[in-house]
């Protein structure tokens, strides 16, 4: 793995206990991420993408594996060190109205982030709040508003401003536009892209929306039932999807046709996403895979190289 990466995740696993059963939320995931780049994590429900994001941030503790951030292994960090670490890694959430305190004004919310880390004086923090609001495209007056007075798009900008107030190196975006109207989604996505350039931010972008992930990411990892089934540079993944699951996923996207001839037929896809409480044996995708062989039912496929920087966990990849 490249040593100049800002973040290295090595063989991280997380199991939850649900009603006495084991739920393998994240299984043996590894990746590295260079500073200033974006890694997209895509997957459907139960893929473990959000859990993975929280493991990286250590909002959850992993059972196995380690997370190295900026050259330091943070897996064993104690509470106090962790709190200091938060300055460098931040997160924005899918539902900003749920992640903000309804009884704090926007200004107070952003200022509180800095106050927690004792950054600057009260006056300088308030000055910075105004600057940050401008950066995310909000008028200064918004700082006196309470969250319920703002729209979803505005709130997500507030969430971004609050995260940026700490000057983080890594920003985890957990479905940041999924709850927004389409015309607002673009605005927020482009804002994130512009901010990345300006501050040399590193993103982990988590979404079920492949188009949005493709738009922002340099590298994409496709998750299925807690495992990375395919990982590749963004354009490569869309040009040459190698894992049957990635192919199904790409074929399920309904694009707006440019001409009537391009209108898509509805595809029949076999099977359902299995419950992560009861994952299939061998390759987790085999019950839905039209190429599955006997080996797929019993043997878990190893990660194989498709081409330079392109990996897929499938027995059929040569």
């Amino acid at each position, binding site marked *: 793995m490249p040593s100049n990466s800002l973040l290295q995740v090595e063989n991280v696993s997380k199991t939850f206990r649900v009603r006495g059963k084991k739920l393998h939320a994240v299984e043996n995931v590894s990746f590295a991420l260079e500073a200033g780049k974006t890694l997209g994590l895509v997957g459907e429900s139960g893929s473990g993408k959000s859990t993975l994001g929280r493991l990286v941030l250590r909002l959850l503790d992993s059972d196995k594996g380690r997370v190295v951030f900026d050259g330091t292994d943070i897996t064993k960090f104690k509470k106090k060190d962790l709190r200091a670490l938060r300055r460098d890694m931040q997160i924005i959430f899918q539902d900003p109205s749920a992640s903000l305190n309804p009884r704090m004004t926007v200004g107070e919310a952003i200022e509180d982030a800095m106050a927690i880390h004792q950054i600057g004086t009260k006056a300088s923090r308030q000055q910075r709040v105004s600057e940050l609001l401008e950066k995310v495209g909000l008028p200064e007056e918004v700082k006196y508003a309470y969250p319920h007075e703002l729209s979803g798009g505005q709130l997500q900008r507030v969430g971004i401003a609050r995260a940026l107030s700490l000057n983080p190196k890594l920003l985890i975006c957990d479905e940041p536009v999924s709850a927004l109207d389409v015309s607002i989604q673009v605005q927020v996505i482009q804002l994130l892209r512009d901010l990345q350039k300006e501050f040399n931010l590193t993103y982990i972008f988590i979404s079920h929306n492949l188009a949005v992930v493709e738009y922002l990411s340099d590298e994409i990892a496709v998750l299925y039932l807690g495992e990375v089934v395919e990982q590749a540079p963004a354009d490569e993944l869309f040009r040459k999807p190698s894992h049957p699951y990635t192919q199904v996923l790409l074929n399920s996207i309904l694009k707006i*046709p440019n001409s*009537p001839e391009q209108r898509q037929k509805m595809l029949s896809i076999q099977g359902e996403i299995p419950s992560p409480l009861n994952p299939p044996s061998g390759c987790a995708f085999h019950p839905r895979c039209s190429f599955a062989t006997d080996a797929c039912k019993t043997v878990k496929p190893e990660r194989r190289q498709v081409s330079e920087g392109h990996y897929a966990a499938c027995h059929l990849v040569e």
Partner: protein
Amino acid sequence: MSQPLLSIDNLHVRFARSEDEVYAVNGISFDVYENEALGIVGESGSGKSVTLMSSIGLLRENGKISSGTAHFQGKDLLKLKPRQLEDIRGRDIGVIFQDPMTSLNPIMRIGDQIMEAMLTHRYASRKEAFERTLQLMHEIGIPDPKSRFKNYPHEFSGGMRQRIMIAIALACEPQLLIADEPTTALDVTVQMQILALLQDLRRKRGMSVVMVTHDFGVATNFCDKIIVMYGGQIMEMARTDQFIRRTAHPYSIGLKRSIIEVGHRGKEILPIPGASKALTEEPVGCPFAARCSFATERCFQETPALRIYGEDHHIACHHAEEVARHAV
């Protein structure tokens, strides 16, 4: 052309809030013909869902239909008593919603729920209803219907629950299925499965579908006809092929351009400036005028009527022709 199956004319709906009123639907008219899939597309607050739900008597308590008619099989649904509407809903008009969990009864076996749909409308005898339930479950893709009959909703996945909702909605073989964001809560692969199922059922039964969705991709690929709504009004209405070939309304064009799709990587995307607002005043002029780059004084003062723009193509814009020249 033959008689429309459902004909909505000049519908107005308002919602009373604690301090003000929301003008949710402001003069909507459209027809649904037999064997047709109509997609009503819009963002939140466009009134797309309210339009349909109010016409079948499923309006929230604080909502009020201030004028309009909704003719179905010769009857004005808006003039019917709740009992009479209940009779039509579920028998002649099937309805499915975004979240099947909230419309299914959590403590009733799913087989019984499908059967009940037929029994309450006296569509079939108990014995027939049971047989038909098993057949329906098979048809909508629930494996092993006999044993699954006894399961409860929580024992199914989201996709399966939506299938069950479809079975209930279709139990009495309605001529019209109203689907309110039926796949929005589902994963993409499951969405594709449900849409494929709906497509298949529709063809087999010669049933009409009206689908409310915020997803242009779903609407343009699934539906024969598209209505684009904004601010409680129809902006554009066209056969899908026409719509794809020459999208004409500045809002539809802007929205289509602003959607990030696969393959857009590296491209600059132009968002529609601003955001839609709740309509707390009686709308004057075009609701989109404030965000429209073609807007003139006239657009703010005079509400554009929905007029013929081409074959099977209607548009509510004063400047459609000029917009078209620019788009080329």
